[in-house]
């Protein structure tokens, strides 16, 4: 057992850290958020050129053969910068399904362009009434001669507006909450009957709602076996949880460190705020929550990467703890910054908003606690 980064991981980590420092000051980020498409295409290109987009793909697929640990290193640094580019949507989620179940021809058609950044993917699995259950799928595939037609709504599709194609879950058999009977397809964004309505989220990212109106798909569009898509979907969601947990860890590091720095700089009642024992102990607790999250992130990510028996439980545990810590660290960072903490002018609020969105993504704290103990 060892907790050291490999030499390559350390290099990637350092290079992203520099990238964030150079490009992700608060003002630059706000400017990117306010301009279509809500992130920087230049940065996206840079990420591709530096090989980051190929990190979690096998060498056969044109990637670098990294695993969840490599993605963790990257996402933690992205979290420190609140990076806007669609790495999670296109690489971890959309790409994550393709690398697991796509056919040879689908790989050829898509993975190269995903890795070079010229095309983007998105994952459409949640529905208006699915709650946090990925197996709760009501959008049904109605059998046709050469495939299916889909009708219904997929919601909270991250970076859907800029996606060139969607990985979509739909039901081909079974009841609405059965794990079996879920199939996956790769559907180009310009397919007839598919409407994408994009909208911003509170963290400055871009989400969307997809409406399927008699959208036809053929056998060529299917990803993996019919009725048997849940396994891959669930694995990809676990990867997504690990990724946003690492991102959240990076964001929490900024939050607790900013708070420590602010209290040392700011005077009240003739003392720096850092003199007040109540604030000192609060910051100690923020730091401890951060460290606890880091430990469990390492544990869960290593367990998943090693394919351990305890992997699913560790992922539930992690998402629970990250959410709980996010509230604790975020609320106390804002509170300790006082009036300034609730304005758009300081960065703490921006980090906290990203944490809120992460908390509600892939199932919240309570949901995963429940799953953990079931």
């Amino acid at each position, binding site marked *: 057992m060892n907790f050291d980064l490999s030499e390559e991981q350390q290099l990637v980590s350092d290079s992203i850290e520099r990238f964030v420092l150079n490009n992700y000051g608060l003002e630059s980020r706000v400017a990117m958020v306010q301009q279509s498409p809500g992130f920087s295409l230049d940065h996206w290109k840079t990420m591709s050129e530096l090989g980051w987009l190929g990190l979690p793909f096998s060498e056969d697929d044109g990637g670098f053969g990294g695993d969840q640990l490599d993605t963790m290193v990257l996402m933690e640094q992205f979290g420190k910068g609140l990076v806007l580019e669609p790495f999670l949507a296109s690489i971890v989620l959309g790409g994550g399904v393709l690398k697991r179940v796509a056919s040879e021809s689908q790989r050829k058609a898509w993975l190269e362009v995903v890795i070079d950044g010229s095309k983007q993917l998105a994952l459409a699995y*949640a529905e*208006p*009434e699915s*709650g*946090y259950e990925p197996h709760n799928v009501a959008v049904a595939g109605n059998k046709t001669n050469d495939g299916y037609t889909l009708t219904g709504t997929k*919601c*909270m599709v991250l970076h859907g507006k800029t996606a060139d194609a969607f990985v979509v879950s739909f039901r081909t058999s079974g009841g609405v909450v059965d794990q079996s009977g879920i199939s996956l397809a790769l559907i180009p964004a310009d397919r007839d009957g598919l409407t994408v*309505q*994009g*909208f*911003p*989220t*509170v*963290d400055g990212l871009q*989400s969307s*709602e997809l409406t399927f109106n008699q959208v036809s798909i053929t056998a060529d569009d299917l990803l993996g076996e019919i009725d048997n898509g849940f396994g891959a979907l669930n694995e990809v969601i676990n990867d997504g949880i690990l990724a946003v947990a690492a991102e959240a860890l990076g964001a929490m590091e900024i939050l607790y460190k900013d708070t420590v720095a602010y209290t040392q700089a*700011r*005077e*009240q*009642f*003739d003392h720096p705020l850092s003199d*007040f024992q*109540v*604030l000192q102990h609060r910051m100690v607790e923020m730091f401890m929550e951060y460290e606890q999250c880091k430990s469990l992130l390492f544990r869960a990510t290593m367990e998943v990467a090693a394919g351990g028996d305890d992997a699913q439980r560790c992922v539930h545990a992690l998402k629970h703890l990250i959410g709980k810590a996010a509230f604790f660290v975020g*609320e106390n960072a*804002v*509170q300790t910054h*006082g*009036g300034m*903490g*609730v*304005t*758009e*002018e300081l960065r703490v*609020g921006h980090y*906290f*908003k990203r944490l*809120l*969105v992460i908390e*509600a*993504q892939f199932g*919240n704290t*309570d949901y995963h*606690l*429940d799953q953990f103990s079931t």
Partner: protein
Amino acid sequence: MDIELSNDDLSFEAEVREFLAGNAYKDGEDPNKWRMDWFEKAREKGGWDVPKWPAKFGGPGWTPNQHYIWQKETARSSTPWDMPFGLSMLGPVLMAHGSEEQQDRFLPDIRARKVNWCQGYSEPGAGSDLASLKTKAVLSEDGSHYVVNGTKIWTTMAHIADWIFCLTRTSDAGIKQEGITFLLFPMKQEGIEVKPIITLGGSHSVNTVFFTDIKVPVANRVGAEGKGWTYAKGLLEHERTGIAGISNSIVALEGLKDKASSVKRGNGSLMDVSSFKAKVAALEIDLMAVEYTELRSLATASAGTAPGPESSILKLKGTDIQQRIQKLTMEAGGQFSAAWGGTNAGPDFARAGMGGYMGSRVYTIYGGASEVQKDIVTKKVLGIKSSKK
């Protein structure tokens, strides 16, 4: 000890309900006209437009029970928007410390909702340590007016206010609570710049306000020079009780339950999910308790007395409850709470739920942060004096 309302109270309650029902907003009405009419009719009831003002100044002179009934009923009813700055904050200061001339000049317009006031207290760099304010007021050589220079921050509604009541420093001698002077002046004049502060909920209600060489006639000084802090202190306690917002929370909690009941989970709703249900129940119980803490506080406060340190307790508990309601509302909205305009995905209540939650974080900061409230209770209620220098 008795929970039941007296017959007098019951008929007062009926009268309030009748008034509120009879004067509720009707679709199509001009909202502004309705507002002014509403206050006029409340006035005709015998000072119901200024419930907390003493009878001497035209208030209704209610008993604590009557105040409670009014608060409970209005929280559940359609009543016109109102702002506390003139009515609940400056008003009592003028009644206690203003000259008769000042009372005659300002109180009628406050009562008539003709003039909007804002409060110039906080400053950049002062935070919860209000008394360390630096905005300077220098008396002119001829003694006719002050010249004010400085910056105020977190000034709620400064962008629509007509006048400001403002704490200024007229002396640096002595401890910082001394040398503070309470001035009144118009907001719409040269030399005043109002810069919006956008808060994380995305809304604009607070501002930074810059004063450059503002002339304020001495006649606009409330009370004595250098005594402003003593007038302002009591006012903060008024503010706190208002911020606790307990009656509003009772209504908001019912709203939360309705919303959560509309969110499908399994064969039931979110209100059937045990973890969520337990959080709502614990919240409701805390609210049931603090509702009676407020009643106990109302009951012991003799008429006319400013709320004491127990207002800190109400503020601490009340704002915690408000924040928890916002948090659970956001939770009920699930992923859809992240939406920030431009969509109609998910339940109506859910969208921008995270904005509402972020906006609620300020409750434990303004009006004296929770940490400061606890320092106050330490000293004033527990009687602990710090021996540290």
